[in-house]
C-alpha cells in the first residue's frame, strides 16, 4: 500500500487529497489529461473523459505517461480495466491525420488501414471525400476540413489536423508594455496556443483573457477577426487593445448592429453574425472580407451553433478560443474540440487566486424568514408565480438594504432578475438601475461612473451578466435570479473577483427566502461555489438586521 494523494474511482473520477504533501506534484501530473470538476477545500475531483485524454494527446502526452502518473500517485491499486481503457482511448487520437496534399489540397491518411476502412464506411463521411489515394489515404474536399473533423470525433476517431494554416494578410501588431507587464501565465498561454496552431485557452474570469488575445495577435502579426458576445464587450476589447498594443483607432473596426467597419483588426459580435434575413446569414461576407490570419473567439463556451457552422469553413485560419470553462450546457464540447482546437492552456482558479491575480471571494447566503402573511401568500400562489413571489418579497428588500448599509465604503453591485424589484431597490438605495431598456451610452456612462467611484451602489439586471468589466466591485448582492447555469454563476462571480487596488477580499451575498423554491436554487449555487473552492457560509437574516 503506497500512500499517494490520489484515489481512482470506478466512474473514472480522480479524487485528490489537497492537503497531502505530494498533492502539488500530483496535480501537475494529472492536469493534462483530467478535467478539474470540483475543487472544494479538502478533496478535489478530476474526471477523465475521452476529450480530456485527446487533449492530452494533442499536447504531446502519451498513454504511458498517463498510466504512470495514475499508478505513481494512486493510493489504491488502479483497476486494470481502467488503464486499458485509457490506453485504448488515447490510441484513437492521431490514427487518422489530415494532411496537405500536393494535388488534392487535403488528404485523410492513416497508419491503421482498418480504422480508415471503418470510417470510410460511414454514410456521413462518404460525401466529404474525394478519390482514394492508395491504401492508406483518401482525398478530402478542402472545404470539408471542419465537417470531417466533427464527424470523425463523433465516430470516436478524432483526427490530428496537420494540414497547417494560411498566413493571412500580414499586419504589424506589438504589445506596448508601459507600466504593465504580461503575466507569466498569460505569456505561457499565448505561446502554448501558438505552438499548437489552434486551440482553446482556459483562464478564470478576471485573469486577463483579453490580454492573452492581444499577445496572440502580437505573435500572429496578421489581420485579426475577433468574435465577442455583445456590443459592450466589443467596446471593452477595443479599449484594451488600444491601451495594450501598438494598434491605433484607425486600425480597429467594429462590426455590430450599428457599425459595419472592416479594418485590419475587426471586432464582431456573435449577435450580428447570427442575424438572419429571409433565412440567410447576411454577414457571412465578413469572413471573406479580408485574408484573416487569426480568428479570436471570446467566451467559447457561449459560442452559438451557427458560428460553429461558419467556423467549420475557417479551418485553414489560426483560431484561438478564450473561455473560463470548457463545460458547455449544451454538451457541444466535442465541437469546440474539433472546430476551434484542443485545449492548449489551463490554470485553476484557486491557484490564480493564491498567486494574487484574482481576488479571494467570500460567499455568504443570507436566509430570510418570510413573515406569516408572506408564507400564506406563497402557499396560495400559482405554481408559475411562486418563484417570482418568494424572490421579490419585501422581507428580502429590507435585508438587502441592510447589507448595503453594512458596506458604506465599498463599491456594491446589486444583481437581480425582476425589474420592479430592482426599481424599488434602486429607489430605496438611491442608486441608478441598469436594465434591458437602458441605452448603451447610458450604460457605459454609469459603468464609468461606478469605476470612478462616483457612484457607490449600482443595481443591475441580467443584462450585466456578460463581459462587462467592473474592476472595483468589492461586494455583490444577488437578490433574485434562478440558478440558470453554471456559466451564469461563474460570470456573476466574475463580476466581483477582479483584483482590487487595495488587495482586499471580495464578498458575494445571495439573499434567499427560507423554505421556498428560492432555497432550492440557492442549494445549487452553494454546491457550485463550494465546488469551485470558495468559502461559503449561511447566515440568518435576523443576524444581519440585528447587527444594525
Amino acid at each position, binding site marked *: 500500500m503506497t500512500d499517494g494523494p490520489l484515489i481512482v474511482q470506478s466512474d473514472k473520477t480522480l479524487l485528490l487529497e489537497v492537503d497531502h504533501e505530494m498533492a502539488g506534484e500530483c496535480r501537475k501530473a494529472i492536469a493534462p489529461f483530467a478535467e478539474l470538476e470540483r475543487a472544494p477545500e479538502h478533496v478535489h475531483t478530476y474526471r477523465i473523459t475521452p476529450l480530456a485524454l485527446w487533449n492530452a494527446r494533442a499536447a504531446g502526452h502519451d498513454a504511458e505517461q498517463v498510466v504512470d502518473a495514475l499508478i505513481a500517485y494512486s493510493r489504491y491499486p488502479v483497476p486494470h480495466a481502467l488503464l486499458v481503457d485509457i490506453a485504448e482511448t488515447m490510441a484513437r487520437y492521431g490514427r487518422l491525420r489530415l494532411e496537405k496534399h500536393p494535388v488534392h489540397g487535403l488528404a485523410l491518411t492513416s497508419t491503421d488501414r482498418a480504422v480508415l476502412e471503418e470510417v470510410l464506411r460511414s454514410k456521413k463521411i462518404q460525401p466529404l471525400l474525394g478519390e482514394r489515394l492508395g491504401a492508406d489515404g483518401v482525398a478530402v474536399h478542402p472545404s470539408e476540413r471542419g465537417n470531417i473533423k466533427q464527424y470523425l470525433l463523433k465516430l470516436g476517431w478524432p483526427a490530428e489536423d496537420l494540414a497547417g494554416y494560411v498566413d493571412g494578410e500580414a499586419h504589424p501588431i506589438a504589445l506596448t508594455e508601459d507600466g504593465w507587464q504580461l503575466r507569466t501565465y498569460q505569456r505561457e498561454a499565448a505561446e502554448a496556443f501558438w505552438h499548437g496552431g489552434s486551440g482553446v485557452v482556459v483562464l478564470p474570469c478576471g485573469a486577463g483573457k483579453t490580454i492573452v488575445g492581444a499577445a496572440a495577435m502580437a505573435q500572429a502579426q496578421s489581420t485579426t477577426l475577433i468574435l465577442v458576445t455583445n456590443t459592450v464587450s466589443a467596446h471593452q476589447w477595443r479599449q484594451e487593445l488600444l491601451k495594450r498594443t501598438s494598434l491605433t483607432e484607425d486600425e480597429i473596426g467594429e462590426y455590430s448592429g450599428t457599425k459595419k467597419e472592416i479594418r485590419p483588426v475587426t471586432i464582431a459580435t456573435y449577435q450580428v453574425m447570427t442575424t438572419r434575413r429571409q433565412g440567410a446569414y447576411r454577414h457571412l461576407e465578413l469572413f471573406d472580407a479580408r485574408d484573416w490570419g487569426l480568428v479570436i473567439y471570446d467566451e467559447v463556451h457561449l459560442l452559438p451553433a451557427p458560428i460553429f457552422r461558419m467556423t467549420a469553413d475557417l479551418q485553414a485560419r489560426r483560431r484561438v478560443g478564450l473561455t473560463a470553462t470548457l463545460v458547455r450546457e449544451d454538451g457541444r464540447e466535442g465541437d469546440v474540440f474539433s472546430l476551434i482546437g484542443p485545449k492548449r492552456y489551463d490554470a485553476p482558479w484557486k491557484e490564480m487566486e493564491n498567486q494574487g491575480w484574482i481576488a479571494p471571494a467570500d460567499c455568504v447566503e443570507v436566509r430570510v424568514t418570510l413573515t406569516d402573511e408572506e408564507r400564506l401568500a406563497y402557499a396560495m400562489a400559482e405554481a408559475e408565480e411562486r418563484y417570482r413571489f418568494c424572490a421579490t418579497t419585501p422581507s428580502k428588500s429590507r435585508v438587502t438594504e441592510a447589507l448595503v448599509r453594512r458596506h458604506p465604503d465599498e463599491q456594491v453591485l446589486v444583481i437581480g432578475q425582476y425589474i420592479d424589484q430592482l426599481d424599488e431597490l434602486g429607489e430605496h438605495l438611491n442608486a441608478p438601475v441598469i436594465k434591458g431598456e437602458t441605452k448603451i451610452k447610458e450604460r457605459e456612462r454609469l459603468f464609468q461612473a461606478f469605476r470612478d467611484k462616483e457612484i457607490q451602489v449600482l443595481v443591475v439586471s441580467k443584462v450585466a451578466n456578460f463581459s462587462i468589466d467592473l474592476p472595483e466591485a468589492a461586494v455583490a448582492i444577488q437578490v433574485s435570479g434562478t440558478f440558470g447555469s453554471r456559466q451564469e454563476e461563474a460570470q456573476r462571480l466574475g463580476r466581483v473577483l477582479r483584483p482590487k487596488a487595495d488587495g482586499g477580499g471580495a464578498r458575494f451575498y445571495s439573499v434567499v427566502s427560507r423554505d421556498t423554491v428560492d432555497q432550492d436554487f440557492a442549494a445549487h449555487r452553494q454546491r457550485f461555489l*463550494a465546488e469551485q473552492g470558495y468559502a461559503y457560509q449561511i447566515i440568518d437574516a435576523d443576524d444581519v438586521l440585528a447587527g444594525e
Partner: protein
Amino acid sequence: MSTEFTEWLRSRSDEQLRALAAVRPELVTPVPAHLEGLAGRASSPSAVGRVLDRLDRFTLSVVETLTVLPSPISYGSLRAQMARALPGAADPVFRSTLKETVERLRTLALVYGPDNALAPAPGVREVLDGPAGLGPPAVEVFRHYHAERLAELIEDIAGEGGDAKSDTRSDTKEALADLLGDQKIVGRLIEDVSPQARSALNELAWGPASGRVPNARREVRATTAQSPIEQLLSRALLGATGEETVVLPREVGLFLRDGRIHQDLSPVPPAMDGARRDRKLADRTAAGQAFTFTRAVEELCERWSADPPGVLRSGGLAVRDLKRIAALLDLPEWVAGLIIEVAHAAGLVAASGAVDGDWLPTPVYDAWRMKGTEDRWVMLAMTWLTMDRVPGVIGERDERDRLLNALHPDLRRSAAAEVRATTLGMLAAAEPGMAPTLDSVRERLAWEQPRRRGAHRDQLVEFTVREAEQIGVTGLGMLVGHGRALLPGLPGLPGGSRVGSPGELLAPLLPEPLDHVFLQADLTAVAPGPLTSELRRWLALSAEVESTGGATVYRFDERSIRRALDAGQGADEILALLERHSTTPVPQPLSYLVTDVARRHGRMRIGTASAYVRCDDSSLLDEVMADKRSMPLRLRRLAPTVIASKSSRPALIDSLRAMGYAPAAESLDGDVIITQIDVRRTEGPPLVRSSATFNGLEADVVAAAIRAVRAGDAAHQARRVPLDVPDGQVPRSPTTATISALRDAIRQGSQVWIGYLDSQGNATSRILEPARMEGGYLTAYDETRAAVHRFALHRITGIADIV
C-alpha cells in the same frame, strides 16, 4: 478381449496395480470381481476415452504412433518413429521424456507389453478415430466397395506388367491394401496423376484426411479419368466413404507424410509469452479487485433486500432487472451477471420458494456479512472456482434461440469447474512475473489437453481469464498469491512468496478500514478508503453515495438528513458523529443544513388511530378520560374536543355504550396507514450445486480394492472351490464394533468371519476378505462363494476373527 492384455495386467505387481487404480479410480469403482473384469473395464471405450482426454500432446502422439504402427513393436522402433516427428535432432530431453512417457502409459494401462513388444491396450485403436489426422486404413476405406469395382481398381493400380498375384487373392480388399502399402506402387501412382491432383492430395496429407466432393461414388477407370478427383478415385488414392465424402487411405497418407506420423512434435510444452509485470503491483491490484468484488456482492444483496427482483417463470432474472442492477452498481452487464451468479451459487441469494417469487438474500448472507473481508472473498472465490454455472453466456442465445438470462437453470456447463482449474493451472505454470496472453494460454492448453478442444471450451477459457481478473484471483493478468492458494495441489510461488491459506495471504493486502472522512462545504463527505462497518452503515443512512471505487463519496442533502432523523437520531447526535469522524472542522453549511432540517423535522406529527371520539362539549370528554373503565381502550386526548383510540370503531362504540354514553358512528375517510418497507428474507439456504471435483481415492482404499481384485482373480483363475463355512454361529456384535473390525480388516488385508442375513432373510455365515466400505455397503471377496459381493452393513449380524 485380449487375453494378452489380461495376462500382462496379471503380471503387474500389486504396487503397479495400485498406481493404476489411483490414476484411473473409475476402474475400481465398484471393485471388479477379477483381473479379467478389470482388463475389460480398462479397455471399454468410455474408460479409454476418459484417460486419453487427460494426455498431453506428446503422450498422445506416442499412443497414436503405437496405434498406427503394426503391433507389437519394439521400444527402439517406436523411438525411431517418434524421432522423425521432431523438428530437430533427437536430444537427451526427448530420450528421457519418451522413456518416462512410455512408463506412464504403462501405468495408465494404455500401453502394455515389455520393451521389445509394446502394444496399445485393447480399445485404444477403436477410440482413437483417425489418429494424428490420418484417414482409416485402406481395408476400411474400401470395405463397402463391391468386388467388381475392387477388381477394376486393382487392375488399374497394378498397371501394365503388374503383379499377377493380385487376382489370386481371395480377399480383394486386402489385396488392394497390400498394393497401397507398397511404397513403390504408391509413388508411381502419385507421379501418374496431374499436378492439380497432387496438390489436392497434399491438402489432405496432414489432415483432416477427408474432403467433400460431389458424386464421390462415381466409378471411373484410370484411362477415362478426367478431373483431378477422378484421377485420384480411379487409382484408389482416394476412397469414397459417402455420396459426397472422400477420404485419404492411411497408407497413402503415410506415404505423403514421408513416413512421419506427426510433425513439429515437442517433448516439452510450448513456452508462454506475455507482458512482464511487477508482482507486488499485481498482488495489490488483485487485492483491490477482491475488495471491490466482495463489496459489489454485498451491495447487490443490500439492494435486493429492500427491492427484490421477481423470479421469471422460466426461473431466471429478467434482462431488465440485470440492466437495472448493473446501472445501480455502475458495472458492465457481464460483471453484474458474474456477481449475481456467484452470489447465488454461494447461497447468498435465492428465489423465495413460492410461485411468482422474488430473488432475495438468504440467512447465509447475514452470516457472511459478519465475516472479515478476506473470509468473505475466499468463500466467493471458491464458489466461483467450483460452480458449474457459466455467467459468461448470459445474454447469449441457446441452440433453440432462447435468451439465456442470469440465474437461468440452463447456464450450467459440466466442464466449467474443470476448465477454470485447468486455466488457472496454466497461469500458474507461467514463469513468475509474466502475464501470459490469452493466445498463449490457449496454445498451452491445446498442448496439455489436445483432445479437449472446441469453440465452447475456448470460450470458457476466455471467460475464466476475464472473470478471474474481475474477482481478484489474478492481477494484471497474473495468478497472484492468494489466488494460487485457492487451487489445491499447486505449489507456492518459487522465490519467497509465503505459503498460507488464501485468506491469510489476502488479508495484509487489503486496505485498512478507516474511521474518518473528509467533510466539505459542498456537502460531500469523502471516505478516502474503506470505512469501518459502523461508520459505513451510518453514512449510508444519512447521506447518498455518489461515487465508489478506492474511496467513497457521500453527499448530504435534505432528504438524507431527514432519513437519519427519521431513524431516531437527533441533530446534536448527528453533529457529534460528524465531528468525531472528521479530521477537519465540520463545514458551516453542513452543520447549518443539519440544524435547518432538524428545525423543521417533526413539527408535523402523524400517527395511526383506529377510531376517534369527537365531541363539541369538552367536559364530556374530560369525563370519558377520567373514567377508569376507559383504561383498556387506550384513549389519547389529541385536542380538547378530540380523543384518538387504538380500538376499532365498533369496539369503541360498544365500550362507550357499556359505560353509559350514547355515541354515534361517524363515516370517515381520514385513516392514515403507514406502510413500511420491510427487509425481507427467503426461507432456508438454496440448493447449491457445484460439480464434484474428483480428487482420486485415498491410498488405503486403492490398496484394498486391488487386494480384492487380486483375491477375486486368484479364485477366478484357480476356479477355487469355495471354502466351507465354519460350524457354529457367529456371535452377535454391536454395529460399531462390526464397522471398526471391518475397517481393521480392510487395512490389514485379513479375513473375517461374519454372520449375514441374505436378501431372503436367511441367516448365513461367510468368510470375507473385505475390500472397501462406503455408503452403507461393504465390498468384499466372499471366500465361501468365491466371488466379490456387496454386503449391506445393516444386515451383518456379527463378526469374528477366523480361528
